[in-house]
């Protein structure tokens, strides 16, 4: 199988899943409609009927990790091709990646010392 056929197959599976789900919805629709009752469409809030929308400003308390993660995440882009040729290149590859990972590890240690690794 050529690579482009493989991607076509993957894409086709995604489309097929969407079609399957759509058919499920159609069957459900043919079974009956939802009864209109007061208060039925209010989301779960432990018994309180809250008519206000929930889309308000929300303090995400782990944003320190999020910032660190954004930068740290990039390291794996270089790591996968490196891992494929690791045995071929040998010691040079180990030293190379060792330096790279040490540099990144410094960033983690820095964040740790700045109290970034806790709930803000």
């Amino acid at each position, binding site marked *: 199988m050529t*690579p482009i056929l493989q991607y076509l197959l993957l894409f086709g599976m995604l489309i097929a899943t969407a079609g399957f789900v759509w058919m499920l919805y159609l069957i459900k629709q043919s079974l009956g409609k939802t009864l209109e009752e007061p208060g039925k469409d209010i989301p779960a809030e432990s018994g309180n009927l809250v008519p206000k929308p929930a889309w308000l400003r929300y303090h995400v308390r782990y944003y*320190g990790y999020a*910032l660190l993660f954004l930068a740290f995440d990039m390291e794996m882009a270089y790591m*996968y091709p490196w891992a*494929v*040729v690791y045995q071929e290149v040998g010691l040079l590859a180990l030293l190379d990646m060792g330096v790279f990972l040490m540099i990144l590890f410094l*960033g983690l240690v820095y964040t740790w010392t700045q109290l970034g690794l806790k709930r803000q």
Partner: protein
Amino acid sequence: MISIQLIFLIIFGLAAIWFGWRVFMTSSMVRSALSLLASMVAIGALFLVMEAEFLGVLQIMMMGTEMSIMAIFMMMYMMDPGGLGNMDMSHQKNISIAAGVIVTVLIIGAALATDWGTIATQFPGPHEQNRLLGMEILKRSMMIFETAGVTILTGMIASIAVALSIKKSMEK
């Protein structure tokens, strides 16, 4: 096979453009962040159509996390993240539209006017690509790779220092 490639190039290109356009046309913050994610995934799919498999899958993975993090930052800093008030958050609209259109036309003109020479037909397969990219990282572009490491460290330190500084001075 060429024609299939062209068809999918156009399909995913249109998807990328449409979702990219939706980013600035909706007032719901999470919707605009996830539209950008959809646009980026379409770009990743374009990479796959152009048979750069590693880069395509990598793009799809990276953008999934990056744009979701963008969504949480939108949630934290926007007055009305749900977009229920339909606030207009743009300025100098006409100048921006003019700039966008002019730049697009210029680039398309440059692309059409240039003689690109012969199109390559032979190219390495997915596994060979991974191997050659690894060799490139370890041999010829080794300094670029290590410089990228130092750049990532700089970015990490800069963002942490900027984002957490006031917190620390308050704790003292």
